């Protein structure tokens, strides 16, 4: 039986984090170092089902830290910064946002360096071996739908970054926490009170933010890729019935390319990978006003 983060006490986790904790998420190995209590608390809750790896021969994709910004200000208004290797990609944030900063920072590492994969800004879930990609503008209800599906029998692969393997076009999981913002926080908490949520960060640049612990099954299967089958653009509208509508492929391709983190870096390879993804997927628009109706409509996709 492998050791999981939940098997450690919070104090043990904090000790390991201060020295450096190895955390594997899908294909990536992170080495996370932080003395921040908020980071230990957050990881203890959100990454409970993740394995604790203890290797004799350590080789990681990313070395990251969340650390206090030194200086006089730390006594007045303490700030933290996210560090990848020797540099800080973002400006410092108030110390209350330590956990959110780690989550964004880890996403940043993947989006900035994982060019052996095509990465798109989209959520990915899978059922019966077939995966749905959910791109969508902020405010379109993507995170709400992702969280609801992940808590209703769909396997969560990713909330923010879809990873397409260039060799075979399969989607790779990350199984990281789902980032809920503003209005979706209350909707999901009311609908799924039994799920585990991290601490609330108010007033980040994205508004209020909370993270949802990924279901145990999603974490246990984070090495298992999935075959893309649908690209669905969700749009929440008050009172709208839950309905799928076909969407032109060419426009879907262009939208996905523009919302990719590295399409232009990959050049021709990126074009081929994205074309493969769109070719094997049904492209749909999806409008909904009620979460239960939306879940039923997605059930209809797989049956």
């Amino acid at each position: 039986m492998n050791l999981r983060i939940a098997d450690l006490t919070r104090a043990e986790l904090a000790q390991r984090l201060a020295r450096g904790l190895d955390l594997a998420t899908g294909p990536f190995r992170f080495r996370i170092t932080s003395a921040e209590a908020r980071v230990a608390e957050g990881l203890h809750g959100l990454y409970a089902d993740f394995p604790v790896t203890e290797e004799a021969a350590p080789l990681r994709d990313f070395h990251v830290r969340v650390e206090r910004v030194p200086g006089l200000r730390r006594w007045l208004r303490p700030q933290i910064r996210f560090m990848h290797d020797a540099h800080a990609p973002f400006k410092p944030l108030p110390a209350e946002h330590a956990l959110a900063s780690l989550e964004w920072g880890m996403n940043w590492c993947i989006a900035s360096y994982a060019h052996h994969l095509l990465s798109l800004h989209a959520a990915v879930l899978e059922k019966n071996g077939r995966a749905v990609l959910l791109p969508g503008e902020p405010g379109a209800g993507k995170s709400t739908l992702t969280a609801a599906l992940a808590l209703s029998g769909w396997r969560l692969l990713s909330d923010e970054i879809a990873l397409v393997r260039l060799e075979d076009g399969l989607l790779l999981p990350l199984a990281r926490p789902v980032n809920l913002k503003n209005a979706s926080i209350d909707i999901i908490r009311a609908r799924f009170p039994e799920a585990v949520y991290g601490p609330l960060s108010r007033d980040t640049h994205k508004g209020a933010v909370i993270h949802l612990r990924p279901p145990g099954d999603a974490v246990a299967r984070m090495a298992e890729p999935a075959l893309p089958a649908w690209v669905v653009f969700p749009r929440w509208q008050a009172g709208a019935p839950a309905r799928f509508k076909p969407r032109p492929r060419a426009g879907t391709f262009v939208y996905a390319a523009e919302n990719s983190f590295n399409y232009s870096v990959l050049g021709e390879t990126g074009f081929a990978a994205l074309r493969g993804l769109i070719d094997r997927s049904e492209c749909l628009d999806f409008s909904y006003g009620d979460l239960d109706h939306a879940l039923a409509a997605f059930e209809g996709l797989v049956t």
Partner: protein
Amino acid sequence: MNTAFHTLLRALREPASMAGLDAAAWDGLLRHARACGLLSRLAADVRSAGVFDGLPEIVRHHMRAAEIVAERQHRAVRWEVHKLRQALAPLACPIVLLKGAAYVMAGLSPARGRILGDIDLLLPRDRLDQAETLLRFAGWFGAGHDAYDQRYYREWMHELPPVTHFRRGSTLDLHHNILPLTARCKPQAERLWTGVRRLDAELHRLGDADLVIHAATHLYHEGEWGYGLRNLADIDALLREFGARDEFWTSLTARAAELDLARPLAYALRHAAALLATPMPVPALAWAQRTIGLRAGFMDGLFRRGFATAHIEFDDAWSGLARFALYVRSHWLKMPPHRLLPHLARKALRRQPEEST
């Protein structure tokens, strides 16, 4: 000095040695090589050595990713040079590409796996104003330079304030010389022009010896040493490419003296030989020793530390001091004290408001 730095030097000298590294050595090497801008170069080396497929999966992924970024940068530079050629056609004068863009467009060996940034051009000084206007019409604008910056560049430097393309984001540096006008070494730009080689109707590069001398001058006047080893690797590659001909070495040292750039070249030869095992004839090394003279011991120590300062997490007790000394030295060489002190004071004062935002 740190282990990862030594692993990196060995990897550059003997690429096949990378096949024998364990996971812990790779962990340090990947981080250090990336901080130095040399990961894509190592990728090219392991492929040539035929050992890529046997490397750990994480290493292959990061090397492939670094290659993809470098390939993209090479494509972008070719395209930008094409656009530049169109934009500057009315100048009807030769355009000399410098550094990375020259290596790529001339197909020289430092281009292998090299990451690229800004594009550097050398133009006759009296054509710079016209070139700047033409580039503005083509979408390259200067940004964020106040009156002081403008004066700093136009009166004292060897280049104009950088211009960036409003849509594509590419940045160009327009030079009329390879060192600031205020620098202690005073190469004459006219002499550089006598050696330039034609690549096609409009584009040129510096002559063989001048390429090496320019790379050395740039490296040993640099204040930030993060990419120092990458720049030394460029020099190593050029020396290996041109150095097969014996007469190259005599022309190289003579040319450095003619351009008043013997010192930087002498340091480059010593350090390339010592750190990267660049093959070179005994008289060339002896010339380098004579040129530097008694200072050699202390300065070599400083520079060798400088090459290892790319990644702060691998610092030792002396790294901070070395970094600071090299920064001060760079300014000292580029400006006389009566200009330097007010300039540094101004930079220090102006930095404050940016940090508090």
